[in-house]
């Protein structure tokens, strides 16, 4: 993922969050999103990260961080503890995306989820024409070394939310970085969005 789009993603997440919100960023990486939100939204934030080197980076920045695994450690939090949980570009790397999503909407009032869209036309076309696993900006690993276990398309994500009683409130257009109220599946999104970013909550 290029830095430019990362910063734009940060901005769009910041736009979704009221100032002073309590937040957990699951798979918080080096804590840069939390730092951004600290500055922009004055949040009460903390992270969870599986990679210890990144945990160390967070600690050195003064960010509270739990070395932990989203598939296991989200169970430790009580219901509705946070205003927001955030999971950016990590859903596809979890063992059980279904469990993780259910836990996220359980421990927070709202969740912000982003993921690479495997249904993007370039990926679909690349697979069709080359018959090789696609590599793009947001899918940057070769098939044999990818940490990603469960790729999905935007439509798959919408179906899963439906299945586990999750309400999609807002979706972001990551092409022009606009937020829109979610009104249902959309042909253009599923073909032309390299990634999906949704604001969800439990029904």
């Amino acid at each position: 993922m290029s830095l430019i789009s990362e910063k734009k993603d940060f901005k769009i997440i910041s736009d979704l969050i009221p100032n002073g919100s309590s937040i957990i960023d699951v798979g918080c990486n080096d804590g840069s999103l939390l730092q951004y939100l600290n500055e922009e939204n004055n949040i009460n934030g903390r992270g969870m990260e599986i990679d210890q080197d990144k945990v160390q980076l967070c600690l050195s920045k003064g960010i509270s961080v739990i070395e932990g695994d989203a598939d296991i450690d989200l169970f430790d939090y009580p219901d509705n503890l946070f205003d927001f949980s955030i999971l950016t570009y990590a859903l596809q790397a979890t063992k059980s995306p279904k469990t993780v999503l259910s836990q996220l909407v359980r421990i927070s009032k709202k969740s912000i989820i982003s993921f690479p869209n495997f249904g993007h036309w370039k990926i679909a076309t690349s697979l069709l024409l080359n018959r090789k696993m696609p590599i793009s900006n947001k899918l940057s690993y070769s098939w044999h070394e990818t940490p990603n276990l469960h790729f999905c398309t935007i439509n798959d994500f919408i179906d899963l939310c439906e299945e586990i009683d999750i309400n999609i409130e807002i979706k972001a257009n990551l092409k022009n970085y606009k937020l829109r109220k979610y009104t249902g599946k959309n042909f253009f999104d599923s073909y032309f969005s390299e990634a999906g970013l949704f604001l969800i909550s439990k029904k």
Partner: protein
Amino acid sequence: MNENKIVKLATDKPLTLDCGKSLGPIQTAYTTYGSLNANKSNAILVCHALTGDQYVASSHPITKKDGWWSKVVGPDKPIDTNKFFVICPNVIGGCMGSTGPKEINPETNKEFGTDFPVITIADMVRAQKLLIEHLEIKKLFCVTGGSMGGMLVLEWLSKFPEMVHSAIPIATATNHSTQNIALNELARQAIMADPNWQSGLYYQSDKTPLKGLSVARMAAHISYLSKDALQNKFGRNLQDKNELEYSFDADFEIESYLRHQGYTFVDRFDANSYLYITRAMDYFDVTASHNGSLIDAFKKTNAKVLCVSFTSDWLYPTSENKKIVKVFNALGLNVSFIEIETEGGHDSFLLNEPKFFEALKGFLNSTLKDL
């Protein structure tokens, strides 16, 4: 700067202990490192473990060895004494100058021995609080310690939350597990089974329970190491010999090593102190005065906390440390957690563990910006 100091505390009013008895005036022996800043906001209280003492970063007067945390505390070390004022007191019940069984009971002018009241971790913290007040420090920048030191940290967070800005409990637990009580009981029975123990009244005698204390230390030492560490360090190597001797001498290196650990320990530790301090650890349950609720025990704290565990520690395993993380999370506190991968066992917090040091340094230096 780092010479041993001794202060008399609880001179006006004795300490009321958990057992109902009172103790006082009490004596506390402590060391300090670095300097206290003008608004007294940079003090770090370091709490020692069962057999530790106040010589955290200075040469031990008996063993002449480096302080037990000299890798961690000092100029440019993870707990940087260029920035922080470090205080390390010997706990009450100890044997390096603080009021304990081998000190003189002012009421009888004889050593306390087993007349010393049974103390708890909370009692030790009450005594530490008197020292901090004596030093005119209103709020500690950080309280830290490993093993029993970590229990003291948790008790500080629970009992005196307004006095703690941040805390680093390391390789510890919110109460003592059955297995840990069992191991401590083994150690105490070894001491008390030694005829030289004489019901704890051995101070005026020329016989002291060195063998019992030595066995206690040997058993404990095994629990501080991991199976892999023992296996890799000693294997089945023989000690200065090529063949088995078909005797009960120390044939194996591990036997010789443990005997050495036992023999050298008795030079610097008092058998009765071992009984009292292990008892305090067994009695430890931070929820004791909160109807068993961890949430209630910590609900008044708003300290920033870093919990640390070590993968091969089977005495205070990661699962026990994660219970602490879980309750602080549930309270919505700023808690961090890191598990250090090592084969060093429980003793890892005393060893050279660069990832552990990095976490301490990162946490303390970034928290310093809050001041």
